[in-house]
């Protein structure tokens, strides 16, 4: 009787604890094993060490792969965010022929299976005489990131009151000044969010990258290849670091927007 009552009162809390446990056990596992003194293979716990964190580039080529991923990610993010933002403004703010068709088509790359995209991109590059490598990967990443950027930025633009821009024009700001002083600052959080999303999608991508990278090794590709012989604990260090970096950015973003609202 008392047990039933306790459950009824705390059901939502129990559910929450179970849910978060499910979500975060893999992350916790990754983090814990970044301290494993496992040598080349990191599948079995062999003892605690800080060595992996002190020397994250210790495993051969892991930092080369990381550098490649960051470079691909940054270039793709800048290009996809720029192009995607322009598309989002066109779709969100202007009436033109083919607008609704474009709105639908922009979703298609998100719905297409990545293996298919990757394979056909490879075929396309080969037919064009372009060898797989750094730039084909960047082009592919920009392509699949654009859709996500458009959707994110467009949502922000849709929530923007058009009367704010009218008020700016009413207060002697011409079209360019209105965009720079009112529209852009108000849409900026959406653009920043889209850029973060684009970077994490690019950094994380394995399938499309694997098809089009040739000899270029990105971080996900490194981990995949390494898994055949045993993943070095440095991969866990880098993975955990990325997780905490993302967490930091999200919390910082929340704090900044909360302070701005005050």
């Amino acid at each position: 009787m008392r047990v039933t009552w306790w459950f009824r009162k705390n059901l939502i809390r129990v559910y929450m604890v179970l849910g978060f446990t499910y979500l975060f056990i893999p992350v916790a596992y990754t983090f814990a094993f970044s301290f494993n003194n496992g040598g080349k293979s990191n599948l079995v716990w062999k003892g605690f060490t800080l060595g992996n964190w002190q020397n994250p580039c210790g495993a051969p080529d892991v930092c080369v792969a990381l550098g490649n991923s960051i470079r691909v990610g940054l270039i793709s993010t800048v290009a996809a965010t720029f192009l995607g933002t322009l598309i989002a403004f066109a779709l969100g703010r202007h009436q033109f022929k083919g607008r609704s068709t474009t709105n639908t088509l922009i979703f298609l790359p998100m719905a297409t299976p990545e293996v298919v995209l990757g394979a056909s991109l490879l075929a396309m590059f080969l037919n064009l005489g372009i060898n797989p490598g750094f730039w084909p990967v960047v082009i592919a990443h920009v392509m699949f990131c654009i859709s996500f950027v458009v959707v994110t930025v467009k949502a922000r633009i849709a929530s923007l009151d058009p009367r704010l821009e009218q008020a700016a024009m009413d207060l002697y700001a011409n079209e360019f000044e209105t965009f720079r002083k009112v529209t852009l600052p108000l849409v900026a959080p959406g653009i920043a969010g889209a850029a973060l999303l684009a970077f994490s999608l690019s950094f994380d991508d394995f399938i499309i990258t694997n098809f089009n990278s040739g000899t270029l090794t990105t971080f996900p590709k490194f981990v995949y290849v390494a898994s055949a012989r045993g993943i070095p604990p440095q991969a866990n260090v880098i993975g955990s670091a990325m997780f905490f970096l993302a967490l930091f950015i999200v919390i910082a973003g929340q704090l900044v927007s909360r302070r701005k609202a005050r």
Partner: protein
Amino acid sequence: MADASSSTRGDLRIVNVTKSFGDFTAVDDLTLTIPEGSFFALLGPSGCGKTTTLRMIAGLEEPTQGSIHIGSTDITHTRPYQRPVNTVFQNYALFPHLSIYENIAFGLRRRGIKDVNEAVDKVLNLVELPHLAQRKPVQLSGGQQQRIALARAIVNRPALLLLDEPLGALDLKLRRQMQIELKWIQTEVGITFVHVTHDQEEAMTMADTIAVMNEGKVEQMGTPADLYDNPKTAFVANFLGQSNLIEGRIDGNDGDNFVVDVFGQKIKINKSRSHAKDSSVLAGIRPEKIRIHPAGTAMSGNVLTGGVISDASYIGVSTQYQVEMPWKQELMVFEQNDDGVPPLEKGDAVTLSWEPVFTFALDGREDAFAGSEVHADEE
């Protein structure tokens, strides 16, 4: 303080302006002159074209036909930022990412004025909110936001200030207070105010001149007293306050008055207050102008006998009666509770009377209910 444009000053003239959206004509061949320095109200129900008119003056819509002038300058096709016109938007449209100070300085900075400090401080003092300069708009109450929106507009000293339902979002008490304040500020700064509203009380409290709009046209224009005491159409009679409109027929002359037959009883209507096209009229009388007495009391002026009270509601300052007349029409009578006489009761037989000078006459073919139902919707 620098003016938005010292060369463009003068009366606002709207000449034969039509605005269509597809098949819908929002503003229909509107011609209007708003004198420089006046407080002018465009009053009408939603969809009457008043907001579209305001947006065309601001430059946010382009007229389909016609032209708009300030003084001798044609502004019909200029961009909003090229006009010496500023707007207080309905939802205030304060820039959420800028401080109150920067919101107010926005227009000055866009016009290349470097030293904005003095002007901003002065206008913040005018609206009595100097302590809020460094806050963000979301930290302000509705009434404070309203004043900042006003300050942001008038700091530019435009030739024309447009107010789009500026008090619509405020509660009744604050609205009353802001009405008085707006009127005071207008007198203080001497800028032409054009005020769009569906609230007749708001328009009458503040404006020198009111144009009542209906279906894209101006029904009647005049001072609040003019419109209330001498309406020209049933729409104006019903939209501005309430009116009893009784069918009648002009039966003869008596000096300055027409003698009108209403269902067998004779009343007088001053000729200067008659807008009848022929002998068929709607005789109009405001509910508060009518005196109500037990049947049989002898009375002078315009008298209608044979009424029976069908409803009486005591509302403090006055008692509102519904009186059913022999011709089955219900007339409204508002009687001040100022004579110590207990209110009459439902079922009492009564006689109604009023001074003939308060009567007005409308064209008898008009719909006696025009404007009354839209009014009820808006309240």
